């Protein structure tokens, strides 16, 4: 019987200032092959990873923000964003990419993956995890 654990990937840093964001995404995509219960969380400057309309033309770096749209195809549909982290940065849910997944239990209907939650709710969700990888 294969072991299934609850894995949370906690993203705390913005996309291009340091390498953590892209290398975290690389872990998440590999992890999808292991059929674990996966969730992604964005807190602090990590919320910038999934803001709309990213453009890296001026900095000569690869714009990897489109990759987040593929998460749904990898059956990753639990994406939590800290409400407080958004507010502290003057952002709202409308600034966040509308990431979706197709629900196989509901005639493959397209549903939103992103949930904005309070830090209080987040700490409860985190306490339910078996493994929390923070980047």
């Amino acid at each position: 019987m294969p072991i299934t654990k609850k894995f949370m990937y906690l993203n705390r840093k913005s996309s291009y200032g340091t390498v953590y964001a892209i290398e975290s995404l690389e872990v998440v995509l590999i992890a999808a092959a292991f059929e674990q219960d996966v969730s992604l969380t964005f807190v602090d400057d990590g919320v910038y990873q999934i803001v709309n309309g990213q453009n890296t033309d001026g900095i000569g770096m690869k714009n990897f923000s489109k990759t987040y749209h593929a998460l749904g195809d990898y059956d990753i549909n639990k994406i939590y964003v800290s409400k407080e982290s958004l507010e502290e940065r003057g952002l709202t849910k409308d600034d966040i990419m509308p990431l979706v997944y197709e629900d196989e239990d509901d005639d493959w209907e397209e549903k939103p993956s992103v949930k904005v939650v309070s830090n209080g709710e987040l700490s409860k969700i985190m306490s339910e995890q078996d493994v929390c990888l923070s980047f």
Partner: protein
Amino acid sequence: MKISIQINEGPYQHQASDTAYQFAKAAIKKGHEIFRVFFYHDGVNNASRFTIPPQDDRNVVNLWAELKQSDGAEIDKVVCVAAALRRGMLDESEAKKNGVDGNNIHPAFRISGLGQLIEAGIQSDRLVVFGD
């Protein structure tokens, strides 16, 4: 308890690797088993066999290389291949594959994929992450 460790920062620049080492040593002393140490991000630089610190300082690479389980068995020390290649860290086989004329991974470490990190998370009782 079975413990795995993830190290996200390079040696000397950052204390993460030192702290992780002290943690691992203390855990082994208490009778725990280290299932795997996984080096990611700049943490891959902890595996460079060309690291030469001043004589009066610790050699972080050698400390890791020499760390063993309480019964003297080897500890699995894995360097992420994608993170390593991106930063110019290669073993003999990667050097050959990529047509590069040298290699710098210490023989106590092995290069492998991110799947090893996920597997460590699945197989261990605890996965402890060190870094910023």
